[in-house]
């Protein structure tokens, strides 16, 4: 954790700094994403949508956030 109380995380392979103490729902909101339309993997484990609100974002977390796109 850094001195300014922010956290360093990775989202879809990119480094990001976010406020300390935020939940996964708050992270999604900050990213402009609708929690009902995405699936989230945190450190290679799927986070069920039902626990987005109670999942705390922690320093060093690695997130994959996916959704459906066109495909054959």
């Amino acid at each position: 954790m850094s001195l300014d109380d922010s956290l360093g995380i990775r989202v879809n392979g990119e480094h990001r700094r976010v406020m300390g103490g935020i939940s996964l729902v708050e992270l999604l909101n900050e990213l402009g994403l609708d929690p009902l339309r995405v699936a989230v993997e945190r450190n290679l484990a799927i986070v069920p949508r039902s626990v987005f609100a109670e999942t705390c974002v922690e320093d060093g977390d690695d997130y994959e956030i996916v959704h459906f796109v066109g495909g054959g």
Partner: protein
Amino acid sequence: MTAQQDVHADTWTVAGRTFASRLIVGTGKYKSLEENAAAVEASGAEIVTVAVRRVNISDPSQPRLMDFIDPKKITYLPNTAGCFTAEDAIRTLRLAREAGGWNLVKLEVLGEAKTLYPDMRETLRATEVLVKEGFEPMVYCVDDPIAAKQLEEAGAVAIMPLGAPIGSGLGIQNRVTIRLIVEGAGVPVLVDAGVGTASDAAVAMELGCDGVLMNTAIAEAKDPVLMAQAMKAAVEAGRLAYLAGRMQKRRYADPSSPLAGLI
């Protein structure tokens, strides 16, 4: 069967879900989401395949597939396109289930990029794991009757042999093996990949397939919406011809008008 077969009453069922349309369409390669939605509408498809990809963090406001094709009206069939190992495919489908909340999925595990030919060893392994986890995988596979049977035994809810390489538009290359797969299968068989034009789709249906899955043949047509309409008609025509039972082939001519009473 009635004298006038109603094609809409002729439904098919996969994993307990019943559909009237025997055409499944992809949602890739379209010029726009508007065109994509119009083509799906014209095709009459009730199932569309979709891919699972990272959201665009830098521009989350870009248009989304779900805004154009309503998953409440059209069944989304998440695929594993681009996966080259069982692990990648399983990971992708676990995420898809979380994103959409359903178990009906399309599994494809590719062997190499040039031909996009399926890797059957990995495909079979992924099928076994997915079935254990409660998924209902419709499985893309080679046009091999033995491999098809093995997938069915592993719990595949539909067998989807390629007609020709993905995106090639070459049409059905091996009618013999597709027919053998159909004859041996206890689950629905759909030709997946290789259709180039309407007659290819009709051939698949005439061979007794339960349906056809295609993407590029519609998306890369000069007029995708018109081609979607053509594919709808072809799938229906092929299905009716299969049900009607075609005439026997002859080596030589056989006159259609009576020979008796010739002047």
